[in-house]
């Protein structure tokens, strides 16, 4: 039960082996699935051409997917397994900060480069020279949400409900609160928490609603959002909700239904109305898997892109995984800017990209429609 190991058929001995630390079961299985789908697409592209060309020789890629069950402790185990048993040269994932913060520590201690596609918590990469990311940071996302709500809803008072046992949710809730208050927008009238396995939020929501906020910020995973929004409506709340990038999966609409229509959330990209390489990616993904790719799928694609560029920067392939890991880290650190399908970004010394966020509206048909783009 601990982890499902799905390995690609053994390739040539000189294949470049890359590990994936993904939530294929547990609280957010769609996130793992979407990431894996994007990775498979990339793998086919590269290996279809005979592999990655470095210094005149072609090296096929080999991807190893492991399930971290959406749990922090399993993510650490998976990272160790990938490093020690599979001897991968780099790891992509985990996606959620809850797993990426602890797994990042493990990768850093074991001197293995790690790129997290979706984690937005600052602690994931902080003082960890071996850990990189493809997503923007919560200290950027928090103020984006605050500004948008103040401007769009004319909100004077805000309330927050968040998952206290999830690093992502808790971190973002705190950042939002401090930035809302720092901007002088008004008080945060309720700041309520809940646990990951909770299903009944009526006590917290009764408190929130009795404080009468202009809007409620819910930086939670989509499965919890579905229950929170619906229960708030049952308790008579008629105001706005605002979400964060963890809302951005088609499953949100499946679970939440009409209760979520007309709400807004901040995210990494908007699939509707995309252009250029982003559109190509979306169309191909749709054709292969029958669904619009969510942001984590696009960010996984970009993470692999970053890694490929790092390998090309390294300019050579070492058979010793330790030497190869060092070369890839140097290659990653050398990337100063990157044009991905989720937008172009520059990297700071910490390995964090500086990139734009978009605010998306959930339309009356349940589509995620571009509303506004915010750049740092």
């Amino acid at each position, binding site marked *: *039960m601990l982890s499902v190991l799905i390995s690609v058929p053994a390739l040539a001995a000189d294949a470049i082996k890359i590990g994936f630390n993904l939530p294929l079961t547990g609280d957010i299985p769609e996130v793992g*699935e979407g990431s894996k789908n994007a990775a498979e697409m990339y793998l086919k592209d590269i290996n279809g051409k005979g592999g990655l060309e470095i210094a005149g020789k072609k090296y096929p890629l080999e991807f190893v997917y492991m399930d971290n069950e959406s749990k922090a402790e399993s993510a650490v185990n998976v990272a160790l397994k990938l490093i020690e048993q599979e001897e991968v040269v780099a790891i992509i994932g985990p996606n959620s900060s809850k797993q990426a913060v602890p797994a990042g520590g493990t990768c850093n201690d074991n001197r293995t480069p790690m790129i997290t596609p979706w984690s937005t918590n600052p602690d994931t990469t902080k003082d960890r020279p071996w850990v990189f990311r493809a997503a923007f940071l919560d200290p950027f996302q928090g103020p984006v949400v605050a500004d948008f709500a103040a401007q769009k809803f004319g909100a004077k008072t805000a309330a927050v409900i968040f998952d206290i046992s999830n690093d992502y949710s808790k971190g973002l809730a705190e950042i939002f609160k401090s930035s809302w208050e720092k901007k002088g927008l008004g008080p945060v009238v309720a700041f309520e928490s*809940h*646990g990951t396995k909770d*299903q009944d939020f*009526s*006590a917290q929501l*009764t408190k929130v609603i009795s404080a009468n906020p202009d809007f409620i910020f819910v930086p939670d995973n989509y499965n919890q959002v*579905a229950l929170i929004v619906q229960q708030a409506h049952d308790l008579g709340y008629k105001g706005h909700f605002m979400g964060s990038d963890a809302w951005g999966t088609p499953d949100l609409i499946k679970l939440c239904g009409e209760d979520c229509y007309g709400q807004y959330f901040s995210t990494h990209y908007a699939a509707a109305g995309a252009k250029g390489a982003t559109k190509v990616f979306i169309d191909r993904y749709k054709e292969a898997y029958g669904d619009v790719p969510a942001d984590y799928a696009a960010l996984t694609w970009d993470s692999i892109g970053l890694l490929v560029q790092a390998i090309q920067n390294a300019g050579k392939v070492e058979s010793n995984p330790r030497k190869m890991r060092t070369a890839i880290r140097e290659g990653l650190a050398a990337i100063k800017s990157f044009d991905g399908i989720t937008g172009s970004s520059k990297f700071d010394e910490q390995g964090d990209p500086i990139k734009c966020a978009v605010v998306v509206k959930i339309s009356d048909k349940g589509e995620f429609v571009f509303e506004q783009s915010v750049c740092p």
Partner: protein
Amino acid sequence: MDFIIQNILNALQWGSFYALIALGYTLVYGVLRLINFAHGDIFMVGAYIAFFVAGFLLGPAIGLSPLMTFALAIPLTMFLTACVGVFLERVAYRPLRRKGAHRLYVVITALMCGLILEYSNLAVLGASRLKFPELVEKTVWHFGGVTLTNLKVIVIVAAVAVFAFLNFIVTKTKIGMAMRGISYDKFAIPLMGIPIDQIIVFTFILGSGFAGLAGLLFAMSYPVLEPFMGMLIGWKAFIAAVVGGIGDIRGAFYGGFLLGFIEVGVVTVFPSTYRDLFAFTILLIILWIKPTGLFGMPQSTKI
């Protein structure tokens, strides 16, 4: 004032689920002296059965209206979930009972059955969550600052009705007398010509059937289904049953509501982090004062 009434209603709804599940624990314990740890997962199976029954009845093959679906889904879900409970009894518990295995081994078997139910669900249906369709068109009533949904009323009424029904069965009918008799002395009872296996199967039918009802109502109130949804709520309902005095029907009922009230009450006053800590500290204190539970009496007939 509105705030307090609203929270009382919230607690009544949440406590109803604990009470409904706790009744199943207490019935089986009362008759068999067995803690059926798979009961929380039978509740989960009930929710999934309700999902498929509702999907089938709403689907193109039958095409019933949501309200008709709801009316038909109740007996169908209860029946099918009862079948699962009886199946477990046949496959897992009865062979052990025939061999005269110690109660401890039966409890371990129950734990394993629960895990098997969870992981077979995960293996068959995958980790992706399911959305339960809306069967009863939701109406929100406003009384000043207090809101009440029709679903909340259905849930609370169902819990009270089930309690009253079980109480009647156990105290007023012949089969209830036989259940109490087995609880009292399961070696003497067959000598009276009472078919002990049939009574036990009947107990499982009752307990699992109402777990199925709880699963259906839970899925309607919290319409996101996942394979592990029964684990935590099952454990907590078991604790509620113990605090009420396991084996006693009233104990399960009041214990379930007590836990619902404590949990909602703690969150109302403190941050939610303290919920389980305070809730279970209070329950522990109750057991210190009265180790047999609120309605329990040491070494006597229960149920």
